[in-house]
């Protein structure tokens, strides 16, 4: 099938401003959503849903949130794990303390708390820049790790600092079966992706990008750095917080602070960079890369029936993974999303280059 937009004319700005101006893209997206919402839950085996797709979707969501901060507003953060943790523990407290609070509401409350924390730790960004800020955000990471272990109210008095949830319901439907968990996460991911897309193509999004590309010029045309940066931190932290809630509630079910440690922060930053800074799809592509690749690599020897010891295979995995990351950064520093975009550019002109 040809990927052409010839003959597709835009008569209104509204039409020209929609997310997917090209018809073929709209069709493709529709198909993708159909597959994701109908076909996958019906056909995919439990392992795929529970162990691959659920974490993939949740991390995509978190990456989406981080991308707003790093990709669109240009503020590097290594404290993402902390914001996830805040979201998870806050949501847990909401559930534990308020009888019969709907799950969705607690998750959003978790996001709200994460927003507050995010803004607080965003304040230094008004003065500190680049890598300095990146390292400074680690303060959030370690502080939250500590708080979750030390402050009793965070874990609702749990002696050991670990908490657990069960019997999840959404609109009266139990969230137990793999498919239901998957659909819940998918819905969150899709809705937030849409909202985020709207933000970044509206005034606020342009403020963020202006701040990222040339902050002085941005200030001169009347953009307030405080407003731009803090809203970015807030929105980002909110989404990340909700993702954290999902991670704790839906994926793990019970967790200790280590579930949101610094490794998580790095992992998410990876997803954003590999996936593509400043693109909504980037989060998803990046998450796919980072979540699926190691698992696939690890299974490879077994598939090929190579006699490789567990330790060896995981060492090899980590080596190949490392190499691939560097390789990707070399071929396309702007990430998979850009790769995809260029491919489309080519396709649009094909078979007549230039």
């Amino acid at each position, binding site marked *: 099938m040809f990927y052409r937009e010839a003959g597709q004319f835009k008569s209104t700005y509204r039409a020209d401003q929609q997310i997917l101006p090209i018809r073929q893209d709209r069709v493709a997206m529709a198909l993708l959503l159909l597959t994701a919402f109908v076909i996958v839950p019906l056909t995919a085996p439990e392992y795929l849903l529970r162990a691959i797709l659920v974490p993939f979707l949740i991390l995509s969501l978190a990456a989406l949130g981080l991308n707003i901060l*790093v990709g669109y507003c240009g503020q*590097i953060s290594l404290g993402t794990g902390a914001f996830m943790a805040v979201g998870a523990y806050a949501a847990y407290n909401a559930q534990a303390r308020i009888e019969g609070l709907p799950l969705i509401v607690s998750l959003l409350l978790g996001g709200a708390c994460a927003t507050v924390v995010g803004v607080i730790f965003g304040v*230094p960004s008004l*003065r*500190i*820049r*680049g*890598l*300095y800020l*990146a*390292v*400074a955000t*680690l*303060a959030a990471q*370690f*502080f939250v*790790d*500590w708080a979750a*272990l*030390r402050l009793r109210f965070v874990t609702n008095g749990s002696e050991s600092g670990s908490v657990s949830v069960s019997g999840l319901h959404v609109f009266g439907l139990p969230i137990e079966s793999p498919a239901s968990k998957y659909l819940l996460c998918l819905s969150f991911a899709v809705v937030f992706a849409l909202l985020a897309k709207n933000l970044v193509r509206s005034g606020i999004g342009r403020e963020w990008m202006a701040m990222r590309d040339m*902050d*002085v*010029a941005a200030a*001169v045309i009347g953009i307030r750095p405080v407003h731009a940066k803090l809203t970015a931190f807030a929105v980002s932290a909110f989404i990340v917080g909700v993702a954290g809630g999902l991670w704790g509630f839906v994926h793990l079910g019970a967790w200790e602070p280590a579930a949101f440690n*610094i490794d998580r922060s*790095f992992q998410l*930053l*990876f997803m954003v*960079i*590999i996936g593509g*800074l400043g693109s909504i799809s980037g989060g998803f592509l990046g998450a796919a890369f980072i979540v699926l690749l190691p698992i696939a690599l690890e299974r490879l020897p077994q598939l090929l029936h190579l006699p490789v010891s567990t*330790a*060896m295979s995981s*060492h*090899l*995995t*980590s*080596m*190949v*993974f*490392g*190499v*691939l*990351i*560097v390789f990707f*950064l*070399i071929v396309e*520093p702007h990430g998979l999303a850009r790769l995809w975009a260029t491919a489309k550019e080519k396709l649009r002109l094909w078979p007549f280059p230039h």
Partner: protein
Amino acid sequence: MAFFIETLIGGLMAGMLYSLIALGFVLIYKASGVFNFAQGAMVLFAALAMARFAEWIPQWVPALANPIVANVLAFALALGVMVLVAIAVEKLALSRLVNQEGITLLMATLGFTYFLDGLGQTLFGNDIYKIDVGMPKDPVIVAESLFQGGILISKEDLYSALIATVLVALLALFFQKTATGRALRAVADDHQAAQSIGIPLSTIWIIVWSVAGFVALVAGVIWGSKLGVQFSLSLVALKALPVVILGGLTSIPGAIVGGLVIGVGEKLSEIYIGPMLGGGIEIWFAYVLALLFLLVRPQGLFGEKIIDRV
């Protein structure tokens, strides 16, 4: 009082080791603009190499069974390995990533981290290994005349701190006095300028990464003989991050002062504030400390000031 001094000294000695690792970060950042998160992995890798070679050499050549000889040879071999790593990094990755943004380079170094962790454990194993360079393990009590009970100092830490100090001094000299050192600093300021002196950038990067590898090796030996050589060594580098930003990414004196400040700040906070908060605060306190400094001087204690021109 005596205990306060003990804490202080403990902090200073720990801080000196942080400085050492921080130095690794600064050297590389100065010369190649790369924030090298692989520093920790390099420490582990170097320590593993050192430990295993020291173990293997007597097996290969029984004539070299003498521990000193074995250690020296192992150190040399390990250093060689680190140089190879440096060359590989430059040829295979850095040279292809020139003029990328800082964040991209940072991510690349995380890629190195995965690779080195995997490779190190594949080549050298993933158990606990011993580096025995004859560090004294027992403490000494000093100044008993001044305070009753005196001041207890861990000899091992003392020696480690001394070694670190010497190394740091040497590197500082190397940068100030030698031609290569000057060239390295030139690169830091302006790549074209450096090339115009007639030193190819690639050479300089290889040198810098090798030096960083050397620093990692020494740090690895010190920490390794302290903790035993095992995967967790790679996490020691995290302790150096607040030091680096506190001191300024581009400043060698910054790394030193920053290290001491963080070292002392950590210990004092843990001992005197920690109990009120249930303890375990030093890890984030170090970062908060760095953060506060940055709010006053966004470019760190000795970092270069950033001015906007439009």
